């Protein structure tokens, strides 16, 4: 199974190469991968239906209880089949839908990467692995929603989706850690099979809330549902795949997966039922107000997700049966409906139902398929959607805990009948209406129709033979969700009972509502101001608040004064550490007075050098004194027999002095800019931290929290690590991972220094302005400074390139150029200077740059 996930990622990797040769046909080639996997997973159906569980173990980081072990049981099998099966058709569909799009290549890569991540998510047994895949789906979803990245709306929607789901992901991570503490393992199987109850653990409430936050944001539950309709900015294959059939069900999957161990409590029932019912109603209601086909479908997806949560909340065996059936039914019809909506959009040029009508002549097959799929959405026999809906109603009557849930569900199902009628009837019947002329509209290629045909056929077959789908697919999934073997069956005909009556009532009411739809929609406009104040407004307020806080704290803490930074860091350190020290351990006064004379001597030199460094007025003197401090410390290391540390200290100190000397000459001449009061304050801060450090060291001598590891290291240095130099063995063997991290940090620091020096606008004008333009606001430099520095620069340039005539650069820099066009037409400029010139504009005038960007954005849309 690990291989299955890997294969998809590999397919994503090789797609770019194949694409060069095969263009959009790459998609048809790539569809083989999920198709093969579908068959492979389907081959396991009999085994799983017989009650077995397939486990493939694979160690990843055993020391942290993290593994790549994958488990195939009823629930993950159903998901895997949906992911690979629908995925096959989506890849085919995308091949035709985005044919000729310049970025189709990128699209296929990300789509396949998403597929792999989603498959990994539902197969993973380890909570951490699951979390990694979870975040991967968020990231790939972000890339796919923002696929048309030149449109601002797409970028915003992508960012919104990402922030909501990733914020939830953070909560999920906390929840996972708590779950692992409560359950005693990171392995889901072990948690589920463990006998100690997670629900009675002290962490249960916090854990449940964190897990639910993660699941609800991912699965677009009220009040986080708003990102899902916005995500419709993505191309249709993405909406069909991620935002209806698979990814948004990840949250539901997680809850279903953990249900046997964390579910069933009062808290669980109340939160899930309430949130689920509200989401159901919100989705259905918002769908009723929408006219965009994809928005209609998106809100009805929100409704379906709410239904699934509600069923999990009800938690009876009947509800579990309904859960599995509803999940399957929804994926089948919703995937098909989205693809069909995409066909209508693609062929007729619009997906606004008010702009469409009478397309049945041009798109007969599409019309029929949409009709059948919409029947399933509305829950009308003999489609599988009906079976699922009957179970939902039955489970609700049987187990829901409050009357308002009944009301919300019934009103929701009335609305959804209306929505289904709108989708099925509006675009295809009545007088012809479409942005494109009738003779240009024709059925799409088979690649786009294949998905809807198969999915609709499956809806129909599963509806006519519910026992079959029940036995092979939903029953094993139900057992996995319930944690026990559930005794139940799926049937089309449940007899004349209350659910059937409710279905009939909602059907009739829904159809009546459809007749008055335009009217109702107009009436509902009066609610617009209230809806505008909905949860999405909370999101925007939150985002604004982040910006505000960031701005505030940057202004306060990072105001550009080095001394201020240092003081902030030091004072926070003193405050927190000092508090902990006093509160926990009191002050230890532990002076071992028996020092040797030469030690006192070294100490004296050290103190003298330190004092010299802080009071001297000569920079060079300060550097030398600092060097003295460093070398004396090296001497201390050597005295206490740590030759490695001593050597390192000496070398580092030497190089530091060299570096400082190199920098020294670049600094302005020494001057006292701080007042005496400030100097006293700074001295006090410095003294405080020195005193604190002294006490800290004394405590580390006295307080031994753990058995020191040094004994183990000394003992095993030679036998295990074959080295007698323990310091080196620690660096390259015991703690090699730390060292590896450190050399990377060192490399980054060196690159940072290099970038700061090389890309400094004052060192090399026109060469590169990265650092200047990105970080610093336009600087206001006094006139005399500009002339002064430019002269120098100018000389350097003359020497090097012998191109510029005197005065050009000074002139261009002196007056700020308002727009790039002006600059280009400036006749004074030699061609070579124009590079530097553009940069000058970018740096000098931020507003004109953003204007340009604005213009660039506007053009393609």
């Amino acid at each position: 199974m690990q291989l299955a996930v890997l294969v998809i990622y590999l397919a994503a990797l090789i797609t770019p190469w194949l694409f060069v040769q095969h263009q959009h046909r790459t998609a048809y080639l790539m569809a083989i991968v999920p198709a093969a996997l579908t068959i492979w997973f389907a081959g396991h159906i009999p085994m799983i239906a017989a009650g077995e569980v397939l486990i493939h173990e694979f160690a990843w980081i055993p020391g942290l209880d993290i593994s790549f072990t994958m488990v195939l049981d009823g629930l993950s099998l159903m998901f895997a089949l949906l992911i690979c099966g629908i995925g096959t058709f989506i890849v085919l569909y995308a091949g035709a839908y985005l044919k000729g799009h310049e970025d189709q290549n990128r699209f296929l890569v990300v789509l396949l990467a998403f597929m792999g991540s989603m498959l990994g998510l539902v197969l993973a047994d380890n909570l951490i692995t699951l979390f990694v895949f979870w975040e991967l789906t968020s990231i790939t979803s972000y890339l796919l929603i923002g696929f048309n990245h030149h449109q601002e709306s797409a970028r915003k929607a992508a960012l919104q989706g990402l922030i909501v789901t990733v914020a939830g992901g953070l909560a999920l991570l906390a929840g996972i850690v708590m779950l692992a503490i409560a359950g005693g393992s990171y392995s889901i199987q072990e948690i589920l099979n463990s006998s100690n109850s997670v629900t009675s653990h002290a962490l249960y409430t916090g854990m449940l809330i964190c897990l639910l936050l993660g699941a609800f944001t991912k699965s677009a539950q009220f009040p986080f549902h708003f990102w899902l309709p916005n995500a419709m900015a993505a191309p249709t294959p993405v909406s069909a795949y991620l935002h209806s059939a698979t990814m948004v069900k990840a949250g539901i999957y997680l809850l279903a997966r953990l249900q046997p161990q964390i579910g069933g409590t009062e808290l669980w029932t109340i939160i899930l039922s309430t949130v689920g019912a509200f989401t159901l109603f919100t989705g259905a209601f918002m769908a009723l107000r929408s006219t965009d086909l994809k928005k209609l479908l998106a809100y009805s997806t929100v409704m379906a997700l709410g239904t699934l949560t509600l069923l999990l909340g009800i938690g009876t065996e009947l509800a579990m049966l309904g859960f599995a059936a509803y999940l399957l039914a929804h994926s089948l019809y919703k995937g098909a409906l989205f693809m069909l909506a995409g066909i209508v959009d693609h062929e007729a040029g619009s997906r606004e139902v008010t702009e469409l009508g009478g397309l049945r002549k041009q798109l007969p097959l599409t019309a029929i398929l949409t009709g059948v799929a919409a029947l399933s959405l509305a829950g009308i026999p003999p489609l599988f959607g009906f079976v699922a809906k009957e179970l939902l109603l039955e489970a609700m009557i049987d187990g829901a805990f409050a009357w308002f849930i009944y009301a919300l569900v019934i009103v929701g199902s009335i609305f959804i009948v209306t929505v289904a009628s709108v989708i099925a009837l509006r675009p295809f019947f009545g007088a012809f209406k479409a942005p494109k002329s009738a003779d240009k509209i024709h059925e799409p290629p088979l690649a786009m129709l294949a998905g809807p045909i198969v999915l609709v056929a499956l809806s129909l077959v599963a509806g006519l033979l519910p026992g079959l789908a029940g036995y092979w697919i939903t029953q094993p999934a139900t057992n996995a969700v319930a944690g026990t073997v559930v005794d139940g069956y799926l049937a089309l005909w449940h007899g004349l009972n209350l659910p059937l009556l409710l279905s009939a009532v909602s059907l009739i009411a829904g159809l009546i509502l459809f007749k008055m739809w335009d009217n109702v929609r107009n009436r509902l406009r009066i609610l617009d101001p209230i809806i505008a104040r909905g949860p999405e407004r909370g999101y925007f307020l939150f985002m604004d608040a982040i910006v505000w806080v960031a701005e505030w704290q940057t202004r306060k803490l990072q105001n550009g004064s080095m001394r201020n930074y240092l003081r902030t860091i030091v004072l926070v350190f003193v405050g927190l550490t000092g508090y902990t020290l006093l509160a926990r351990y009191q002050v230890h006064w532990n002076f071992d007075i028996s020092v040797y004379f030469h030690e006192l001597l070294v100490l004296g030199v050290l103190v003298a050098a330190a004092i010299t460094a802080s009071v001297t007025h000569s920079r060079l003197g300060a550097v030398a004194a600092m060097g003295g401090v460093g070398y004396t410390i090296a001497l201390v290391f050597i005295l206490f027999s740590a030759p490695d540390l001593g050597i390192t200290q000496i070398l580092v100190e030497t190089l530091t002095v060299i570096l400082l000397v190199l920098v020294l000459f670049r600094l302005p001449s020494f001057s006292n800019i701080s007042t005496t009061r400030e100097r006293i304050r700074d001295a006090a801060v410095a003294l405080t931290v020195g005193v604190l450090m002294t006490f800290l060291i004394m405590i580390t001598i006295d307080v031994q929290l753990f058995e020191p590891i040094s004994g183990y290291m000394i003992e095993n240095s030679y036998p295990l690590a074959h080295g007698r130099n323990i310091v080196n063995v620690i660096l390259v063997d015991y703690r090699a991972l730390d060292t590896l991290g450190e050399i990377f940090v060192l490399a980054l620091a060196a690159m940072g220094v290099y970038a700061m020096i090389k890309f400094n606008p004052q060192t090399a004008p026109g060469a590169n302005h990265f650092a200047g333009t990105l970080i610093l606001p336009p600087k206001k430099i006094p006139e005399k400074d500009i002339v002064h520095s430019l002269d120098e620069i100018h000389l350097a340039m003359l020497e090097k390139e012998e191109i510029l005539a005197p005065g050009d650069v000074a002139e261009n820099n002196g007056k700020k150029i308002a727009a790039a066009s002006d600059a280009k037409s400036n006749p004074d400029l030699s061609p070579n200077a124009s590079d530097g010139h553009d940069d000058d504009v970018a740096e000098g005038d931020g507003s004109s740059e953003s204007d340009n960007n604005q213009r660039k954005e506007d053009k393609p849309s």
Partner: protein
Amino acid sequence: MMKPGTLILHAAARFLVPLQLLFSVFLLLRGHNEPGGGFIAGLVASGAFALYLFTFGAAVTRDLMRVDPRNLIGIGLFFGMISVFPALFNGQPLLTAQWWPIMLPGGTEIKLSTPLIFDIGVYFAVFGSVMLMLIALTEAEEH
């Protein structure tokens, strides 16, 4: 900023650079059992070129080094990373030290190992980082 090197400095730098480089390799190789190791050796090697840099300036030093310091950093990180994986092939957690002792004719044993590769990586990363900063600063001075 710096005056052209004096005669003594000139002469000393020419002789000291190879000696210091040799010493740095010595430190690197003995590091596992005696004081030394990749970090210290890297610093010594940079010290050697720092001296040369002070004497002859950035351009000459670059010529002498032949390899761009940025590439040295890359080489260092590369060595550091390749020492991570051999353990995987023996089914051990990443970074577990692997030893491949080789008997040379004459009875000397050379112990090749991933910690050695790793230490060489540290050596080059430290060497490259320090030289990158020093040369960049010197070049900024010279302009």
